[in-house]
């Protein structure tokens, strides 16, 4: 079943068009990767799905309902969460305060405690540091905190924007394992990565973006096998 459908959207920053007639459809469950070079419009697409930027044309449907003109908090309420590029934590709030703020939607609010415990059991490290300021955590811990904050909103779909950026290789692996585990727990994951190899490796489907357009799509394995892609993104 298609959970998120993007139809022919155009997005502008001022006069600059960053997304050009782009369409995607995301199946429920599993990981979908979106890869592409810097400036291909990946982060813009994420922000656009979340309603932080409005497309000039086109439509976004979630669970069969049009969410194009909805505001971010309504979209979050419906069950889409974003783990933004650079984690987007509140550095001078404690880890716990950061996490609890994630439970902003009505249905998540009543289950805050329960979800908090789930996040802590998923990331025991966070529990140890729950009273520390988020800004004092290491990069990997911050990424966990950011993912935890997204989880606590009880999303159906989680968007991850460059979760491995700036992390030590060992942490990259931990984060990727976590993402796979989330997918197994039934979350629909949309993963934006420059780390093409790793992300396509764990994805059931992938899209390649270039200058705001989808230039290639297919299963993760098929894309990884594609010569052109390997040439341009993996330098092989």
């Amino acid at each position, binding site marked *: 079943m298609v959970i998120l459908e993007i139809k022919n959207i155009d997005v502008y920053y001022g006069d600059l068009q960053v997304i050009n007639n782009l369409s995607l459809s995301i199946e429920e469950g599993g990981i979908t990767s979106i890869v592409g070079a810097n400036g291909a419009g990946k982060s813009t697409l994420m922000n656009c799905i979340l309603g932080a930027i409005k497309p000039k044309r086109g439509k976004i449907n979630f669970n069969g309902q049009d969410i194009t003109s909805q505001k971010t908090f309504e979209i979050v309420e419906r069950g889409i969460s974003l783990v933004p590029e650079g984690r987007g*934590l*509140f550095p*001078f*709030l404690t880890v716990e305060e950061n996490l609890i703020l994630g439970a902003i939607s009505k249905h998540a609010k009543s289950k805050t405690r329960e979800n908090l415990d789930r996040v802590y059991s998923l990331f025991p490290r966070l529990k140890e540091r729950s009273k520390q300021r988020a800004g004092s955590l290491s990069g990997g811990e911050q990424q966990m905190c950011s993912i935890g904050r997204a989880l606590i*909103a009880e999303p159906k779909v989680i968007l991850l924007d460059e979760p491995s950026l700036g992390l030590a290789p060992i942490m990259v692996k931990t984060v990727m394992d976590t993402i796979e585990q989330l997918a197994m727990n039934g979350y629909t994951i949309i993963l934006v990565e420059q780390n093409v190899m790793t992300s396509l490796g764990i994805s059931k489907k992938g899209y390649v973006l270039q200058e705001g357009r989808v230039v290639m799509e297919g299963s993760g394995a098929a894309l990884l096998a594609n010569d052109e892609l390997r040439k341009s993104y993996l330098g092989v």
Partner: protein
Amino acid sequence: MGQIIISGILLGGIYAIVSYGLTLIFGVIRVINFAHGSLLMVGMFMAYYLSKGMNLNIYLMMLIVVPLMFILGVLIQKYLLSKVINEPDMQLFVTFGLLLLFENVMLAVTKGEFFSLDMNMGTIPIGSLVLDWGRLINLVAAIVLAILLLLFLNHTKIGWAIRAVSQNRYAAGIIGLRVERLYILAFGLGSACIGIAAVLLTPIYTIFPHVGFNFVIVSFAVVILGGLGSIPGALAGGMIIGLLESLSGYLIAPELNQIVWYLLFLLVLFFRPAGLFGIAGSEEGGVK
């Protein structure tokens, strides 16, 4: 000398209480709110007229002035500043327009006349030193209000949300916080704090349309000196500036009473821009 230190502390209470509102407004929305002083003036006129009109104690007027000022703040943010929310330059411009507007509307209404409440609540002698009730009440209120604000910001979810918005507006938006509403709330709360200050200062100062002007620069100094967005910082910053002003007026010359704290302020700004009580790096959040 003891008397001077007491004066300095009491003055510090005044500077602190006029700065809390700016801490919320400047600290969260990051707009240089030139209208800060004129909001204080508007609050003072409200308190004066209401107290005279209803013939009730001035401090009771807080019950009316504070909600009214909250509403005024909400209206300003909702119908003016949020229209230019992505244009910090124009926000500043609008606050300057409001400064002129408030001052001159009151000027047109009052024709610039001076108003005073003569409370003469008497003094409290402590040995050879003397405290006056008006400023003492203000000082106590400044400390109580600081504690209340601190509890609010650190121990309620709305408080966390307000702090979150001030630290990372983008992230606050994408996790579903309603940034514009929080801004409106912050401006409203800031104005309400100004309302409290206005009521407390009405028995101390002579009220006229330009009375707030002199508190603008010192408020910004207090807020930055203490650490942007830090309530205990504002209290401490107010005390430091109050004491320095009082002491340097006495020891150097009354004409130069501000020069020492100007210099201290600049030194702090240059060497510790997070302020004396802010966490290093906190000043960068939201500031381009």
